[in-house]
C-alpha cells in the first residue's frame, strides 16, 4: 500500500514540475509492474419480455432507458433457403419489394414519409428516436401487410440486383465463396443455391405475390424492440398494427435435404488472371447447434481462428506477413441443419502455397499435437464472456443479437448460458472438440487467384490434390 502511495505522489510531483524532461525524478514509476485489475462489474444480459400474439407473431421487448431511442427488427425464419430452384433470389427480392409502395402509398410517398422522420424504415427494421417510433411502426406494418408489388418497381429492383450480381461475379472473393458452398453442400442444396443475374430475371410478379402469401406470415416472424419503451405499450401498439395479419401459408421449418457426401481433402483452384492476392477458403461441415459440445467447439474456434490474435492470425499475419488478416468461425444454422466451419483470407499471390501449408499445420496442431495452453484458453474464454458488455452496448447491438438467436432457434437466455458454460471448459475439452470436428482429411479448400503464379508451387507443396475449376466449381480438364 505505501509503495503504491509513493508512486502516485511521485507521479503528481513529476506532473507538476514538468517543464523540461526530468525523467530522473520519475523513475519511481516502474513500468515493468503490470497493473492488476480489480474484479469486473457483473454484466447481466438485459431481461427479454416475450409475448406471442393470437396470429402467431412473436414479440420480444428489452427495456433500455439510457437514451430516448428505439431499435426495431423483424426476424423472419423463411429466408433464401426457401427460394424455388431456378428462382434463386426470390426471398430477398420479395423483401426488397416491401418498401416499393403499398396499397395506401406509392413508393415515392413512402420514401417521403420516412424522410419526414429522418428514419429509413427498411423491411428488416429501423432505429430511431422515441418521438418517431410510433410513425415508423405504422410504416413498417403497412409495408409488411399491404405491399403493392408494382410491376415497374419489380423491374427496377431486378435490374439493380442483376447488375450488382454481374459485378460481384467478377470479384475473386465473391467467386471463391460461391464455389466453396457449392462444393461443400452440392449444387442442388438450399445452403448452396445463390442468386445469379439469370435466376433474378425469371422472377415474375406472380412469384413475388406467391412467396409473400406463403412465407411472409406472422407465425414465421419475430419482432424485436429494444430501447426506451415500456413492454405494455409496445404490445398494445404492435397488436394494433400487426394483430390483423393473418396466420397461414407455409410455416418455415429447418431443411433436412441430404448434403453432398464428404470427400477427401482437395484444393480447387479457379483462375483470376493478374489478381495480386489470392482468396483462400478452407472449411468443412460442422455439427448442428444443439451439439452437446457447442461451447467447446466455439471456444476451439476462438482459439484457432475466430478473432484477431488467434493461432491462425498470429501465424499467417504476425509471423509470416502473408496477409492483412484471417478469420475462421462456425456458421450456425437452425438445428438439425449442419453448421459450416470455415475461414477465409486474402494472401499475397506468391505465398499462397505457404499459407495453405501453415493453415493445415495449425489445424492439425489443434487436435493434440499443440494442446491449448492455460493462457490461450483464458484468452479464448474472456474473448467470449468478458466481451459481452462491449458486444451488447447499444440498442442496435442488442436487437441484432436477438435477431440472430431468433433465426437460430435459440432462447434469449443464450448469453447467460454462454457466461456459465464457457468459463468451466478445460483445455482437454477444447482438444476433444478439435479432434471431433476439425477434420484435416475432409476439407474443401478453394483458391481463386492468378493460376500461373500459384499452381506450380501449390502442386509442389503436395498437401492435397489440386483440381482446376471454372467459376461454378466444375472441373476443367
Amino acid at each position, binding site marked *: 500500500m505505501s509503495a503504491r502511495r509513493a508512486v502516485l505522489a511521485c*507521479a*503528481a510531483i513529476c506532473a507538476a514540475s514538468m517543464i523540461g524532461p526530468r525523467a530522473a525524478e520519475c523513475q519511481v514509476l516502474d513500468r515493468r509492474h503490470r497493473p492488476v485489475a480489480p*474484479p469486473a462489474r457483473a454484466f447481466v444480459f438485459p431481461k427479454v419480455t416475450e409475448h406471442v400474439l393470437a396470429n402467431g407473431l412473436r414479440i420480444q421487448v428489452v427495456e433500455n432507458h439510457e437514451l*430516448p431511442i428505439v431499435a426495431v427488427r423483424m426476424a423472419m425464419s423463411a429466408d433464401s433457403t426457401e427460394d424455388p430452384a431456378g428462382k434463386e433470389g426470390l426471398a430477398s427480392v420479395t423483401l426488397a419489394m416491401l418498401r416499393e409502395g403499398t396499397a395506401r402509398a406509392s413508393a415515392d410517398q413512402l420514401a417521403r414519409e420516412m424522410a419526414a422522420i429522418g428514419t429509413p424504415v427498411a423491411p428488416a427494421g429501423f432505429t430511431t428516436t422515441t418521438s418517431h417510433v410510433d410513425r415508423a411502426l405504422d410504416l413498417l406494418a403497412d409495408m409488411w401487410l399491404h405491399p403493392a408489388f408494382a410491376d415497374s418497381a419489380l423491374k427496377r429492383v431486378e435490374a439493380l440486383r442483376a447488375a450488382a450480381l454481374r459485378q460481384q461475379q467478377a470479384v475473386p472473393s465473391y467467386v471463391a465463396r460461391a464455389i466453396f458452398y457449392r462444393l461443400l453442400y452440392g449444387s442442388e442444396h438450399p445452403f448452396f443455391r445463390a442468386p445469379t443475374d439469370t435466376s433474378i430475371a425469371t422472377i415474375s410478379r406472380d412469384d413475388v405475390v406467391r412467396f409473400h402469401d406463403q412465407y411472409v406470415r406472422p407465425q414465421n416472424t419475430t419482432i424485436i424492440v429494444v430501447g426506451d419503451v415500456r413492454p405494455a405499450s409496445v404490445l398494445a401498439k404492435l397488436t394494433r398494427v400487426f394483430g390483423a395479419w393473418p396466420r397461414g401459408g407455409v410455416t418455415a421449418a429447418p431443411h433436412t435435404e441430404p448434403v453432398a457426401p464428404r470427400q477427401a481433402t482437395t484444393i480447387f483452384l479457379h483462375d483470376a488472371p493478374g489478381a495480386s492476392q489470392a482468396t483462400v477458403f478452407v472449411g468443412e461441415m460442422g455439427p448442428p447447434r444443439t451439439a452437446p459440445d457447442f461451447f467447446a467447439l466455439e471456444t476451439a474456434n476462438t482459439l484457432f481462428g475466430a478473432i484477431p490474435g488467434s493461432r491462425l492470425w498470429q501465424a499467417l499475419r504476425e509471423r509470416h506477413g502473408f496477409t492483412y488478416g484471417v478469420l475462421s468461425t462456425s456458421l450456425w444454422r437452425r438445428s438439425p441443419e449442419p453448421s459450416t466451419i470455415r475461414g477465409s483470407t*486474402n494472401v499475397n499471390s506468391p505465398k499462397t502455397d505457404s499459407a495453405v501449408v501453415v493453415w493445415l499445420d495449425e489445424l492439425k496442431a489443434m487436435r493434440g499435437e499443440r494442446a491449448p495452453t492455460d493462457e490461450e484458453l483464458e484468452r479464448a474464454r474472456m474473448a467470449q464472456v468478458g466481451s459481452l458488455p462491449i458486444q451488447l452496448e447499444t440498442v442496435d447491438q442488442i436487437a441484432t443479437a436477438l435477431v440472430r438467436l431468433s433465426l437460430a432457434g435459440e432462447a434469449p437466455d443464450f448469453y447467460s448460458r454462454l457466461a456459465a458454460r464457457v468459463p468451466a471448459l478445460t483445455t482437454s475439452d477444447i482438444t476433444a472438440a478439435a479432434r471431433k470436428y476439425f477434420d484435416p482429411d475432409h476439407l474443401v479448400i478453394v483458391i481463386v487467384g492468378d493460376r500461373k503464379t500459384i499452381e506450380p508451387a501449390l502442386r509442389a507443396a503436395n498437401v492435397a490434390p489440386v483440381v482446376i475449376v471454372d467459376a461454378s466449381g466444375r472441373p476443367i480438364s
Partner: protein
Amino acid sequence: MRPTRFFPVAALLLAGGMAPAALRAQRVDAEHAVPYTRTVLPNGLTLLLNEDHSSPIVALHVWYHVGSKNEVPGKTGFAHLFEHMMSEGSENVAPGEYRLLIRGMGGTMNAETNEDRTEYYEVVPSNQLETVLWMESDRMATLLSRVDQKRLDTEREIVRNERRQVIDGAVFGVANDITSATMFPSDNPYHWAIYGVPADLAAATLDDVRQFFRTYYVPRNAIVALSGDFNPAQARKLVAKYFGSIPAGAAVPRPTISETRLTKETRLALEDARARAPWIRIAWRTAGDDSRDQYALSVLAAVLGRARTGKLSKLLLYDRQLATADTAANFDWEKVGVLFIEVRARPEASLTEIERLVDSVVTDVKQHGPSAADLVPIRQDTAVGRLLQLQSDHEKAHTLAEGAGLTGNPGFYAQRVRGILGVTPADVQRVANTYLGSGRMVLSMVPAGKLNQVSKPELPYVNATPTAAGGKP
C-alpha cells in the same frame, strides 16, 4: 447525467422552424452534447473525460496529431506504416502482445491513420482501465527500445497486403488516390494517398521510424480521451501516473498547405478489367474544418445525395433509371475539403447523359437553391443520427478527441449538429455558387478496353489507369 426525455426538436422544425434560433440551439445542445472535462498535463498532454456508467466498459482513445500530410514526397505512406509499428511492442510489452492482452480481457482494439491524424483505441471492461493506460503509456514512453529491422520488414509486408486487399482488390479501388492527386497540386501534402506511393514503402528505414516517433509521438502532440464507466478523479490520477513523466517533446512542425485551387476542368479516365458497368465521379475543392461553410456544404451534399429522396437519387435511380447507385459527400479535413458526386451507371447507360443530368441538378441548386422542404429530412437525419452516435463510448471518445485535435473544441461535433440545423436554403445556394465552379475533376471509370464509354469522349482527357507495375496514378 443525460436528459432522459427527448425534446421534440423535430416537431418544431416540421411546424415551420418557428422556434427562435437561439432557443432551438440551446435545446439541441442540451440533447446532443457529450459532457466532458478537459485537463492539460504539464507536459502538454490533453486529457478529455466523459463519464458514463450505462455499461461496465470504457473506451480509451489516444489521438496523435500526425497523418499522411506530415510526410514528404519519396517517403509517402510512412505515417500508416508507423501506425503498424506501434503494435510491435515496447519496453514492457512483447511484440504482438498488445492484441493478445486486449483480446484476452474481452476487449477490442484498433488504430486508424488518415491525412490529419493517427488514432489508437481500446474498448475494454471498465475494471481494466489501469492496464490499458499502462499499455498505451508504455508505447508512448518506450516504443523505440523494441524497434528492429525484422519487425519493420514484417509490418511492411502486412501493409502491402492491406493495400492489395483494400485498393487493388476493389473495383476502381485506385479512384481515391487519383482524386487526391488531381484535386491537390504536388506541393500540397493532401496530394498523396494515405497508403502512399507503393514504391515509397521500400524506402522506409529504422532511422525514419525513430525520427518520426521522436518528432510526433510526444505528449504535447497527443490527446487521451476516455468515455465510459470510471471515476474521473481516479482516472485523472492514473493518467498523470502513467503519462505525466513522459517528456513533452519539441515543438511539432506543421506542414504548409498551399492555397492553389483548381482553375479548370480536368478530365480523366480509369479502366478496370473487373468492372461490368461504367461509373463517373465529379469532384470540387471545398473548405476544411476551419471554415464555417462546412455546415452548408454538408447540407448541400445531402440535398444532392440523400438516399432515395435526394435530387440525384430521385432523378437518376428512380425517374430516369440510368444508375444503380449514387453518392454525394463533402469530405472535410483539417485544412481542405472535397465535395464529390459519384454515380454508378447501369451497364447500358451513357456517362455522357448522366454527366449532363448531374450538371442540370447542380445548376438548378445554384440558380434556385433547395426548397425549405428539401432541408427537413436533412435536419431530421442529423438530429436522429447524432443521438444514435451517443450510444457508444467508442464514438463519444472519438468525437471528443477528433474535435479537440482538429479544431481545439472537444464539443465540435455538437457544434456541427447545431450548425447544420441552422443552415438555410440561401446558405446552400451560396456555397453551391462559391464552390461548385468550373475548376473540377471529372473521372470516367469504364470496363477495360471500353474507352468509348468515357463521358463526353470528344473532350480531351488523360487516361490515369496505373500500369501493371503499380506506378503512380
